[in-house]
């Protein structure tokens, strides 16, 4: 597609449930990033995928968070046993060259009730 696509755009879930967020990067972009944006905060790095290299998971806040990526295409971010503090907008971005900025999707707004 022309841009980075994320789904769902909004997700309301009950505390303790698992959720899965999806990101479709721009075709040909080898790098994919997940960021979290809490209300009134900047963007918090979560995880980075580059081609077939091992992902950098150093930003994942707890072991309830995990992410996968199939080759150089779709990525899913999974949050298990969601907590209220997980409520945020989760943004995905892709890049063809890390030095030239990222293209962001519109995000998934997650609300844990």
């Amino acid at each position: 597609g022309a841009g980075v696509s994320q789904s769902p755009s909004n997700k309301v879930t009950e505390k303790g449930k698992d959720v899965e967020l999806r990101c479709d990067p721009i075709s040909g972009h080898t790098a994919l990033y997940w960021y979290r944006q809490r209300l009134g905060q900047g963007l918090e790095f979560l995880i980075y995928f580059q081609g077939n290299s091992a992902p950098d998971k150093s930003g994942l806040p707890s072991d309830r968070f995990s992410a996968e990526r199939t080759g150089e295409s779709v990525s899913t971010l999974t949050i298990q046993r969601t907590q209220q503090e997980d409520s945020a907008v989760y943004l995905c971005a892709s890049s063809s060259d890390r030095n030239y900025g990222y293209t962001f999707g519109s995000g998934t707004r997650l609300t844990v009730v």
Partner: protein
Amino acid sequence: AQSVTQLDSQVPVFEEAPVELRCNYSSSVSVYLFWYVQYPNQGLQLLLKYLSGSTLVKGINGFEAEFNKSQTSFHLRKPSVHISDTAEYFCAVFSSGGSNYKLTFGKGTLLTVNP
């Protein structure tokens, strides 16, 4: 480690007035600098970037920014704002070289343009 400070969390201005959104960064190595804009309920859109060369960078929608190495700043400016410029603006940095590839963002500045 690199960090970004956006000095103003909110900037209200009147339409057609000039505006400057401030950004300071810290990094021990050379940097690339970016400004992103986020309109309500949308993702982030790249406004402009500084990679090298001229320190005055022009972006979309009439915005420009100036890289000042001695002051470690990358302030965003527009000479005359429109109502449609109301949005959140994020400054971001990452350091060239090494294995650092993470854009580090500031906390954002909410620009509100009033009629």
